[in-house]
């Protein structure tokens, strides 16, 4: 499930989607004229888990979401969502998914309650049932006070919440959220994260796209990094961090002149090329446990004075930069 998606995708382009997964895509491609928005994307999201789809602007996140929510037809490839096939069973599939798109899709001139009631009725509920469900959701999203105001009087964050509420009207088992917290203040972001976590704990499967690494870190069981229409890495947040070389050990020396001695002393425990600058030596270490103690012992034996020593986990930012950087190089090769 890790790396090498580019090469393996070609060989499994005609493989069938995994029926066990809540969302499973195989060989999904889509172009807009010259722009190859998606190229052979494979993806699996297990039931009741969150997949974070991480990628820069124009990576193809929205295009993938639109394909998996039946808004857009793929040029090639197949998918299975909530047990239903794309292409083929789109109409039935729409009953089982909820979508909150990248831009809030709510009617400005209707009130919050009217919006949710309309959506409920379009799912086939009676007016009464739809309105009751609407009220329930407004409560859940802290919009009760604004329920009877036209949406054009809402703030951006309120709109987003209403949009998410609309996606939840039919209690769909599979939920697609395209950059759900973009434009929210920190407080609303945290609230929304709570809502999503609650849904997942109740068994909902979520595919969410984001540009925020902390969001993927916090919510996603699995992360897929997508760049220029290709999934370039997949795994848990920890696995991805390990892939950029595990832990980084940072040693601040008392005397910058001792850098060479320090590097020599630490060489046996390095997992990659050490870097040093200005009395700061950075090395990658394969294992976290005991790394600091071992480093201190080795430096002490070599008579190298140490000001400060720390283990730093790579952040998803490191991962992201490393991976998207690699992708650009890999593409230049045949």
């Amino acid at each position, binding site marked *: 499930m890790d790396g090498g998606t580019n090469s393996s995708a070609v060989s499994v382009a005609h493989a069938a989607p995994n029926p066990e997964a809540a969302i499973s895509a195989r060989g999904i491609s889509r172009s807009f004229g010259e722009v190859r928005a998606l190229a052979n994307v494979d993806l699996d999201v297990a039931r009741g888990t969150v997949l974070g789809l991480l990628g820069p602007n124009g990576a193809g996140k929205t295009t993938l979401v*639109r394909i998996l*929510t*039946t*808004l*857009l*037809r793929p040029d090639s490839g197949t998918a299975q969502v909530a047990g239903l096939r794309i292409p083929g069973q789109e*109409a*039935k599939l*729409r*009953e089982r*998914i909820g*979508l909150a*798109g990248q*831009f*809030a*899709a*709510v*009617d*400005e*001139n*209707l009130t919050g309650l*009217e919006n949710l009631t*309309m*959506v409920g*009725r*379009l*799912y*086939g509920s009676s007016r009464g049932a739809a309105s009751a469900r609407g009220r329930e959701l407004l409560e859940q999203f802290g919009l009760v006070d604004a329920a009877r105001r*036209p949406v054009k009087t809402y703030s951006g964050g309120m709109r987003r919440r209403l949009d998410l509420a*609309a996606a939840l009207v039919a209690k769909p088992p599979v939920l697609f959220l395209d950059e759900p917290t973009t434009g929210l203040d920190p407080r609303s972001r945290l609230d929304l994260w709570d809502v999503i976590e609650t849904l997942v704990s109740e068994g909902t499967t979520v595919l969410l796209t984001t540009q925020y690494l902390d969001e993927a870190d916090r919510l996603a069981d699995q992360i897929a990094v997508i760049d220029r229409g290709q999934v370039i890495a997949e795994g848990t947040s920890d696995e991805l961090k390990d892939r950029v070389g595990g832990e980084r050990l940072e040693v601040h020396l008392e005397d910058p002149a001792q850098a060479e001695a320090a590097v020599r002393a630490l060489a046996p425990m390095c997992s990659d090329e050490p870097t040093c600058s200005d009395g700061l030596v950075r090395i990658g270490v394969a294992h976290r446990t005991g790394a600091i103690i071992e480093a201190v012992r080795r430096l002490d034996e070599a008579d190298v004075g140490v000001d400060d020593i720390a283990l730093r986990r790579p952040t998803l930012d490191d991962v992201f930069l490393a991976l998207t950087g690699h992708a650009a190089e890999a593409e230049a090769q045949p």
Partner: protein
Amino acid sequence: MRRLLSDTLVVTERNLIRLPRAPELLLAFTFQPIMFVLLFRYVFGGAIRVPGISYAEFLLPGIVVQNIAFGGFVTALGLNEDMQKGLIDRFRSLPMSRAAVLAGRTSADLFTNAVAMAILVLTGLVIGFSFQTDVVHVVIGVVLALLFGYAFSWVFAFLGLLVKTPEAANSVGFIAVFPLTFISSAFVPGQTLPTPLRQFADVNPFTIVVNELRWLWTGQPSPDQLWQAFAWVAFILLVFAPLAVQRYRRTAGT
């Protein structure tokens, strides 16, 4: 089929609820027609001579048809806005009848057109218009006008989906429909037009529908083209409804 009807009803209701909350649209279909009637009646009315009938009586059917054809504007603007705001995507992700979005939009026009027509006729009655025929003819006239307006709602639905912005929808609609309404017998007798324009006016569906409505409401002799008027309605519907539906599918990007 039941789904189509119930979904259409939901979408129609949505379009009607939001109308009073968009004051500029509300003005467009209440005060604007009144203003038009008054302007034509009192500014041009003195200069235009129509044999055998007062100008108020001549004018009203024309202005009703023009106004009702433009009623579909709300559809062009509404659909365009829905597209920009992502509402069409929301609808398309729901398990609702596909046709209901357009059907609900155009059905809402049917309602607003009826209201606008009532306002126009009342204004007309105040400035000297009166029905000269029996109830059956008047009702057939009302039905003809509403159907004509409904057909044009589909024209506007197509235009609204075709262009990128509401402003573009506005100007394309205006450029496409305005000349049609003026190069016709809606405001002046067709005979007074220069020859090339008259030839156009003679085959213009507006002329045909206006002449028939005039006959149905005031008994003014017409070239007996009632069937042609309804045929035009059917023709416009048959051409533009599928075009709009196809366009609706395409805008989805599929």
